[in-house]
């Protein structure tokens, strides 16, 4: 059976492209091809390898580090994310502009608060 591969474009690395296999985490595939990437835990728990997905789809069900705001901003955890299509990424800490926010300087926007799911508190009950 043929191995499924996809094309990864790194938008903030002069649109460099790489062929990667579908069943392996992007961090592994890209590092093996010489891409300089940060990482920490390698099990989806620490956010160090976060990258911004600007096109395409990944499966990152194994990540546990991102909150809803960060997921909605397009962040993916490369050490566990596997490509499900051709993807375009911004990588490294220079892609982390929207990853972090100062909660005293920028209180959450109303739509962010909705994502924080107030229902959860009501449903938790006494």
């Amino acid at each position: 059976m043929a191995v499924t591969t996809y094309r990864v474009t790194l938008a903030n690395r002069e649109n460099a492209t790489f062929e990667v296999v579908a069943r392996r985490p992007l961090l592994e595939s890209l590092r093996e091809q010489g891409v300089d990437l940060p990482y920490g835990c390698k099990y989806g728990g620490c956010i160090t390898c976060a990258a911004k997905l600007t096109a395409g789809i990944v499966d990152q069900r194994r990540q546990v580090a991102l909150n809803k705001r960060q997921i909605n901003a397009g962040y993916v955890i490369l050490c566990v994310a596997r490509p499900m299509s051709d993807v375009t990424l911004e990588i490294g800490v220079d892609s982390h502009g929207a990853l972090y926010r100062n909660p005293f300087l920028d209180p959450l926007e109303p739509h962010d608060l909705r994502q924080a799911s107030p229902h959860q508190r009501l449903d938790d009950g006494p």
Partner: protein
Amino acid sequence: MECCGPGFASPADAIKAPRETLLYTIAIYTGTGIQKPDYLATVDVDPESPTYSQVIHRLEMPGIGDELHHMGWNACSSCFGDAGMSRKYLLLPGVRSNNIHVVDTATDPRAPRLHKVIEGAEIRAKTDLSGPHTVHCLGSEIIISMLGDAKGEAPGGYLHLNDEFEIVGRWENSMGDIKFGYDFWYQPRHNVMFSSEWAAPNTFMPGFDLEEVGHLKYGRELHIWDFERREPVESFYLGEDGLLPLEVKFHHDPDSSHGFCGAALSSNVIHWWKDDAGKWRWEKVIDVENEPHPEWPIPVPGVMSAILVSMDDKYLYLNNWLHGDMRQYDISDPHAPVLTGQVWMGGLLGKAPEVNGVKMAGGPQMFQLSLDGRRLYVTTSLFSTWDNQFYPEIRERGGVMVMIDCDPLHGGMTLNPEFVVDFGREPNGPSRCHEARYPGGDCTSDIWL
């Protein structure tokens, strides 16, 4: 007790020890954009030395991305009676990788070497724990607070290592109803341990969100343990006075039941003690007010991320990481601390943007006091994710270590004008210095049986 083990017979003996000439601090690249290993830096603190106030050695970890954080010794004064023990190994856990690096500092104290690595994957597989934080020796063995389970969910537990640095398993018999872990300190003559609460790794790794405090994803309790039975027996609910209760310190006097906790977000110091009836009590004794910021809609809390008690139990030191000040309080009466010193360095309020010629990115964060109580070494980085949130310019400028001269007789503190170590000028690019320890023992390690 005759001599021979590590450390000192008593806090009074520790105060009389020779002055420190070296100190170790961890320096991180994790989260900085520089893909280099974190390292243990040796800093020359001997004013007679030609390399005074410089990094004289760097021990790189084997891989990248550990995020070294707190450290601890294999042995302290709790082993003073054991001639077979020595304070030879410094343990450096990686909060993100879960690797625990055991470093030999005795063979050549100026150039420590890696002795062993306990792999994070092995710790997760054998104990279902992750997120190592505080390291304390327990007589000849070692326990490390772990903030999450193998999937990063709270409350985690305690990793137990033997004196060969092999995994024994979980130290605690029960976590009871404890929701989160963080720091701990024990006082054996009272058969007690106190532990505090930060949050689950899955909560603090993505960065700090104020809304999650409201959703009870950050701690607000202190826990009292039966130390011999290894289980919690009582908890203090601190409420709004104790949001993010982080560092806990008992008096060094092993007979004392008094201790303190710095609640980081509330920026309060909580004092506890055992009353005459044998009941544990607590009260808030220091309250740092939030400060308005010209550009921020929400007033800035101090963020008291660390506290330290001097070896003579007379002074308590605390930081306000976001405000930018270090403070010294006389705690001769632990119920009524008196502010006796304050120094500004960095911070968001603009009081001291430059210190000894170095532009500060960050505020006072971790600190270590000399055994004689006269020299306080202070660093500026907290945790890479949180640094990046509150002080994004730290990526370009790196961390800084400064020294504050303290007067242990009359109180008071002044910034030392001669000493500054700028980690923005490290050979591989700006790194961030964090916790510091001295080879011979220090004010945040030693416990007496």
